[in-house]
């Protein structure tokens, strides 16, 4: 009886020490769920979900604060993916938008060099300095539209990315229906 108690206590002590050690030394940095969620988000950093970027939104979803269908660029596809991943209910956004990728273009003649758009850009894709002309580095631009409202002279426009043979896509093969009668 005593021997059994001692053995059990001994095992409990050893395992407890091992677990305590593991909790301290093998601690996972950050929130792994938030990282998984973030990987599915389109990284436009547009803040249209109400959070200041994709990472904060992912963290909000992970902690259960936010709905999973708030991402505008990701659309229903993204919400569906998140619903599957998190086992939450899929709620359609109701606005199916098939948008081509857009990039911001600054009309350099009109720009007054106020730097407001530079401060608004979430990915540092606008270069320029005070009272100097600004321009958009188009390969970094995510088309988030955050630079549009602060511009006092409305010199920023969003244009669709031109189609080239490199980004042109083959259509899904559709078989023609034969007309009978």
């Amino acid at each position, binding site marked *: 009886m005593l021997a059994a108690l001692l053995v059990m206590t001994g095992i409990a002590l050893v395992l407890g020490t091992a677990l305590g050690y593991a909790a301290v030394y093998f601690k996972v940095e950050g929130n792994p769920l938030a990282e998984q969620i973030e990987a599915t988000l389109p*990284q*436009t950093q547009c803040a249209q979900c109400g959070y200041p970027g994709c*990472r904060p939104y992912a963290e909000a979803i992970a902690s259960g604060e936010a709905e999973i269908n708030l991402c505008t660029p990701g659309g229903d596809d993204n919400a569906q993916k998140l619903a599957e991943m998190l086992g939450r209910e899929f709620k359609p956004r109701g606005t199916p938008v098939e948008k081509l990728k857009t990039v911001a273009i600054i009309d350099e003649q009109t720009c007054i060099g106020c730097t407001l758009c530079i401060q608004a850009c979430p*990915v*540092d*894709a606008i270069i320029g300095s005070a009272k100097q002309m600004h321009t958009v580095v188009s390969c970094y631009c995510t088309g988030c539209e955050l630079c549009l409202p602060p511009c006092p002279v409305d010199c920023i426009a969003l244009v669709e990315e031109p189609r080239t*043979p490199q980004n*042109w896509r*083959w259509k899904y093969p559709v078989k023609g229906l034969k007309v009978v009668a």
Partner: protein
Amino acid sequence: MISRLFSFRGGIKPDSHKTESSEASIRNVPLPSRLVVLLTQGSQGAARTIVTVGDKVLKGQCIGEAEGVAGTAIHAPTSGTVTEIGPYPMAHPSGLASPAIVIEPDGEERWITHEPLDPATASREDLILRIQASGIVGMGGATFPSHLKADSEIETLIINGAECEPWITCDDRLMRERAAHIVTGSAILAHLTGARQVLVGIEDNKPEAIAAMRTAIQDMEAVARKCLDADKMNVIAVPTLYPTGGEKQLVRVLTGIDVPPDKRITDSGIQCFNVATAHTVCRALLHGESMVSRIVTVTGSVERPGNYETPLGMPVADLLAFCGVKPGTSRVLMGGPMMGFSLPSLDAPIAKGCNCLIAASNELFSPPPPEQPCIRCGNCANSCPVGLQPFELYWASRAKNLDRAEHYHLFTCMECGCCAYVCPAHIPLVDYFRFAKSEIRARNEERKTAEQARTRFEFRSLRLEREKTEKAARLAAKAAETRAKAASEADSALIAAAVEQAKMQSSVQDKAAPSRDQQT
């Protein structure tokens, strides 16, 4: 020397339809009213235009410089005036436009001064630079820049004269009529790449071409002998089987080496050039002629099928009009019937990779019967020359299950069309694969930009955070300084006050002292 040939798995034997166009010799075409030279001619980037509207140009004059190491130059295909620089439709399944230089010919065909190079004495760098400056790209259809391929160290050079695709005969005619130049060009390429042997692979349905090439090797020109011994070059007749003309298939047939899908043939010490590319290299180096024309097979439903020496930039419609399109032609195929595509616009000009135009009518190419469900017969897998399972790829592509398609090695597929040819259910398999491939490419591109945006956003957040803490630290330091200053000012004021007080006291004592003296 090589007694044994090897075989690759799969392959098909479609009706060759070569004799329609292979019997007449190569003919010239009259200059059209305008030539549209696209800036994008190679697969690795566009040229940078160096002429302006109104410039007079000579035949062979450079009008677009190669941009970057992989770029290729473009040249005026005839003498004349530059009338326009603007977008024109490309010979591409999308029908998208690309910037082009439009030249109005003056009809004189005046060449720019030729500057030949002697391959035996010129340095290797000069020769490779000349190949780039002459705008030479792979003429079998892939248009990969030739100077990049020539700049490699290999053992065996393969010259591809297989021309396995039905209907096309431009390489056949070129080998029959201009074998000497092909042989010289191949010898120069062997000299550049350091190859010890040259194998010319030709399908055995072209006996005249094989004989012409063998004779040309026996009577090799002196300049070619300086680059390579005649006994190092061999013409090998290979069995007629589509797609023997595929690069890796030809390597397999001639050398027995199976190049893995993720490796290039140079990794196995082999390089491969098309016969037309070897011919152009010879013209560029020995005669100083840049690439300004190519031989195009025009066949199918036309009055005068054959091979035409066509200036680059000639609109497809003009070339077809010269050959006389028969009534009943419903569409025009560019490239062969297996790997080619239907041209969306006949305004597209002839580019460096256009080897064949087929005017297709419903009698020649009956419209495909309706697609039926896959019955899992496995014919496609048996015919696939790269050992894929097209039916698996088809299901994955059809269901837009891109990960699964990649898992079944979709990108190993070279779209040769064997699977669709043998499919008893008439499923357009290649169309599904092309769709899935472009979707996967787009998805990967999106992931890349998303990842880039994420790191840039994170860096920006980090920077703003750092700026905030730095500002706080600066303010704190300043505040501390001000406090210290105020404190020290207060201290000095106290000292001054104390000193003042002390002075006052002492002067009071001084005033008081004499009276005390007087008293004493």
